[in-house]
């Protein structure tokens, strides 16, 4: 049984998306439109989530705006008292839809930006989306939403982190999240092309630190460290099955959006089970709660209360065993896997783009 209420639900309402970013956090095998939960099913999920204690809702995807019912879902979430974020590429966020979302009580919109350099942004997105994103940003700003910009950092854009921050400020963002690429799914496929060098990472960190101080009070600057370049792993959303749930388009429910890659676990669906049962009793959520599952050096390590052994999805993806220590940790011999990956990441930017039917399509 969990010892806490969940606080956050990420609702991946669809996997459909006009963009093809090669670092997408969606799984390689994505759900089709015909597999997606209906409007009524999503509303039920949100109601059950609120009853479980969820306070934060992310309406995400894919591109959530490809669904015509996002306004209805946002209104339902607001009526439940949830603080809702629309996580969007900006593509499809017309003035009309944005006004309806405002009316529905949506509070926060996060728009992704690929780069301040339009040619590189287009190459990453696999399409030209910049004009639509800029227009969407202006609409979000004018309607008074809480407004965040999200940027995934990688080798091809990390040297422009200063220009990217300036761009967010000029668009009137309240917040900018600079998130170094996390290597799961599509990003793991493209790791050789995406991973920055150590000197790039250090330079970007210094720029971000300076910007955090300089923009304080005007725009919140958040910098998510690249874990491959850290000594200790990240704490997995405060621990597996402690605060966070993800519902996929088809209703399967995960403790983390990267968890589908753990093929040794079976994830129950809200189509078959109440969300409360999934949270409190399902084997997948129970699997890595507490510390009985931990191996050495985690089991006897004081840091197990800090990072909970790191990321289970990363442990599985890189070592084949989800119960292993996260190989990012320098206290485990598994660390050599990370060090080798960092050394080998020198390939050309030859991306395998995100597509709904995975093929070996290349630029």
């Amino acid at each position, binding site marked *: 049984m969990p010892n806490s209420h969940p606080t956050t639900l990420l609702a991946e309402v669809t996997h459909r998306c006009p963009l093809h970013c090669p670092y997408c956090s969606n799984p390689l095998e994505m759900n089709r439109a015909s597999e997606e939960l209906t409007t009524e099913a999503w509303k039920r999920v949100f109601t059950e989530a609120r009853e479980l*204690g969820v306070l934060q809702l992310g309406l995400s995807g894919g591109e959530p705006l490809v669904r015509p019912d996002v306004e209805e879902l946002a209104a339902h979430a607001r009526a439940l008292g949830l603080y809702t974020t629309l996580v969007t590429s900006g593509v499809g966020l017309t003035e009309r839809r944005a006004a309806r979302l405002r009316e529905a009580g949506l509070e926060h919109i996060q728009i992704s930006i690929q780069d301040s350099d339009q040619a590189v942004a287009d190459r990453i997105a696999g399409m030209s989306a910049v004009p639509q994103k800029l227009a969407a940003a202006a609409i979000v700003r004018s309607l008074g939403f809480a407004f965040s910009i999200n940027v995934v950092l990688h080798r091809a854009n990390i040297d422009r982190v200063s220009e990217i921050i300036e761009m967010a400020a000029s668009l009137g963002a309240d917040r900018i999240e600079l998130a170094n690429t996390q290597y799961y799914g599509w990003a793991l496929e493209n790791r050789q092309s995406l991973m920055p060098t150590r000197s790039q990472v250090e330079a970007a960190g210094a720029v971000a630190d300076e910007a955090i101080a300089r923009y304080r009070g005007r725009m919140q600057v958040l910098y998510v460290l690249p874990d491959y370049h850290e000594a200790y792993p990240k704490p997995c959303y405060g621990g597996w099955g402690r605060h966070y749930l993800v519902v996929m388009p088809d209703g399967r429910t995960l403790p983390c959006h990267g968890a589908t890659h753990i093929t040794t676990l079976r994830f129950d669906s809200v189509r078959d089970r109440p969300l409360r049962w999934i949270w409190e009793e399902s084997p997948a959520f129970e699997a890595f709660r507490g510390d009985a599952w931990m191996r050495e050096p985690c089991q006897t390590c004081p840091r197990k209360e800090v990072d909970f052994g790191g990321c289970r999805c990363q442990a599985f993806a890189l070592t084949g065993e989800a119960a292993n220590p996260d190989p990012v940790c320098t206290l485990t011999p598994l660390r050599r896997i990370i060090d080798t990956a960092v050394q080998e990441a020198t390939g050309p930017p030859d991306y395998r783009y995100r597509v709904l039917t995975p093929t070996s399509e290349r630029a």
Partner: protein
Amino acid sequence: MPLTAASVPALWRLARLDFDPVRQQRVLLYPEGVVLLNNTGGAILELCDGHRSVAEIAGILNDTYHCDVTADVIEYLSGLVERDLVRAE
């Protein structure tokens, strides 16, 4: 600038104070974040309307707690100012 009795605190524009019937406690909600508030914290934040000064907020709470809570209010709000969740003029 450190918070004083004359400061006028207000919640961050992006934050919303609410009551959670599941946990039976007040909560502060903001983009990607939640603060679960104890009774005292909730009572202080409910009075942060961007008009009342810290001294006025403390004055209202002094009656409830039957002592001078000004220093406690300053300490509590300073922590939230540090986290950018409260702005003080």
